[in-house]
């Protein structure tokens, strides 16, 4: 048998896992040259393992910590945006559900006056909150925009209903105004959440 190749010698170190390693092992026992070669291989590997540990030349933890902080901010902003949207949807459901379940008590006209007054109060609160023009995140912006679009649509419906001037106009206007109040309420909430978290 000719001398072992480097591949066979290297394979001998992974004892028993390679086919033909028994033959190679027997050859090494009988062949002093291959035994010496295997010995050199072991020594070379031992020398590689004994190389000194290389240390980082600069402290990189500040950069790692910076990336971690940035990542956390992103996660928080994403959660807040989703939370604001979920909150708006919940409030809308509560308001609409309450309207559907509540028994009629006062006259439609009185109820309409009360709802319109509530809407005006919310409108005023919203104007104050909008005065804060600090940059907000995309998710909150999207949630607010979606609510504002729906309010705009309701306003067009209210105008159309009022212009129609039907005898039961108050009864027709009431559910629309209630929905508007619900949406306004949700919008105020989105802006309050944003104002609390600006600068995170």
């Amino acid at each position: 048998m000719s001398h072992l190749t480097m591949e066979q010698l290297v394979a001998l170190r992974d004892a028993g896992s390679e086919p033909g390693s028994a033959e190679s092992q027997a050859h090494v026992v009988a062949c002093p040259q291959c035994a010496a070669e295997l010995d050199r291989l072991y020594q070379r590997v031992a020398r590689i393992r004994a190389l000194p540990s290389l240390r980082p030349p600069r402290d990189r933890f500040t950069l790692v910590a910076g990336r971690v902080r940035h990542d956390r901010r992103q996660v928080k902003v994403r959660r807040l945006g989703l939370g604001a949207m979920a909150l708006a949807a919940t409030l809308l459901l509560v308001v609409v559900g309450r309207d559907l379940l509540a028994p009629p008590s006062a006259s439609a006209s009185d109820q309409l006056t009360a709802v319109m007054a509530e809407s005006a109060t919310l409108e005023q609160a919203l104007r104050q909150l909008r005065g804060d023009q600090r940059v907000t995140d995309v998710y909150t912006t999207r949630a607010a925009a979606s609510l504002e679009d729906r309010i705009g649509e309701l306003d067009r419906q209210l105008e159309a209903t009022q212009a129609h001037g039907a005898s039961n106009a108050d009864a027709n206007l009431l559910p629309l105004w209630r929905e508007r109040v619900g949406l306004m309420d949700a919008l105020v909430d989105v802006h309050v959440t944003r104002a609390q978290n600006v600068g995170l």
Partner: protein
Amino acid sequence: MTRALVVDSYLLSDAESVVARVRVGDPAALEILYRAYETPVFNLARRICRSVEDAEDVLQDTFFEVYRSIGQYRGDGPLWGWIRRVAASKALMRLRRNKYRDTDELHDETHAVRREDTPLRMDLEAALERLPETSRAVVWLHDVEGYTHEEIAGMMDKTPSFSKSQLSRAHAKLRTWLGEEALA
């Protein structure tokens, strides 16, 4: 006791509690983890990557990944074994990303031309540095870190035969460059 367990107990005796704190987002715990393992991670990265800058990036990427994926570490193995795996993957990813610079084959050819001019015996560090990046990575992962050819193949997205052949080719080159032929 495995090598990774020895490293764990030597570098970080209270690994379990530190990991629990990292999981809940304690930045001080992440720093403890970083300080304990920065040298072995950098050493592994530097032995695989060609430049110090690449190794530093791997160090940074590794600990960011550790922070993000600490939930996946179940504590059923040594912490160093898990961190080392992350580091090795990041280093190998960096090698693949840098492949546009030159292929291993081209690197081999360059060295083949230079071989005539090199001294008979080289320093071990220089000889390792001179190996093609993939071969050097296989030598380090197999001979020093103790990964099997199957594990290396998995990390490199290659076959175990590829890993075996890289290792034997690398040892043949080292043998020549280190002047061991003269001893034979």
